[in-house]
């Protein structure tokens, strides 16, 4: 595992999570303002762009690594969501979230060494 591949993995997961959240916002916006609304369209386009970037990065990584190596890293996307919630919603992390986050991180570290 090089620093370069670690960065690419994090960008892959980061764009995926961000894309999902944009899709969700676009659905909410379409419910309020409709699908032809300019704001809905721009949020949806941003989501599609982020998802596309994430998709191709995933392909590039799969061309180099085993699926059983890359797949566990997707656990980090849950951690990204949890941390975003802590920052954006000012949500305190519960003991359960902290414990799970530590286990996922430890697991990913082991996989990255394998």
């Amino acid at each position, binding site marked *: 595992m090089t620093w370069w591949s670690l960065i*690419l993995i994090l960008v892959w997961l980061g764009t995926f999570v961000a894309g999902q*959240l944009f899709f*969700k916002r676009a659905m909410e916006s379409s419910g309020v303002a409709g699908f032809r609304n300019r704001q809905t369209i721009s949020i949806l386009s941003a989501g599609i762009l982020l998802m596309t970037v994430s*998709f*191709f*990065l*995933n*392909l*590039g*990584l*799969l*061309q*180099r690594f*085993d*699926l*059983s*190596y890359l*797949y*566990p890293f*997707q*656990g980090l996307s*849950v951690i990204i*969501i*949890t941390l*975003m*919630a802590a920052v*954006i*919603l000012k*949500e305190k992390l*519960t003991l*359960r*979230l902290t*414990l*799970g*986050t*530590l*286990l*996922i*991180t*430890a*697991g*990913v*570290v*082991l*996989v*990255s*060494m*394998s």
Partner: protein
Amino acid sequence: MTNNRPSGFANPWFQLGLNIICVVLYELLLKAGAKATADPSKSWSWIGITGLASPLIWLAIVVIILDLVIWLYVLKYIPLSIAFPLSRLVDVLVPISCWLILKEGISSLRWCGIALVIIGLAIVAKPAARLEERL
């Protein structure tokens, strides 16, 4: 919630199972397509666009879109904080499929790491889904 739940093929729990099958299927298709088109000697190949030369990747894209529709349908009937933890069954099925179908050599160190990730995800899935609903 329990009222008006469609039965048979439209049953949301059946569709959730279908979603899990789709995820495992497209992960395997993406890996197979990526393997067929891999050419790490080109420095720009990190962006993965060469993968589009494989029909398996296009098949995977179809399954991904199908899966997205299924998932949105599931979420109409089952709350994310229940559907998301159950959908994490894929985290068990994908490594097993890598081992059985793709014949990837998985060391005991990697199995241990995978196990820790699965246990961690099982613990956080429900509260994390609640947070995601609010984000």
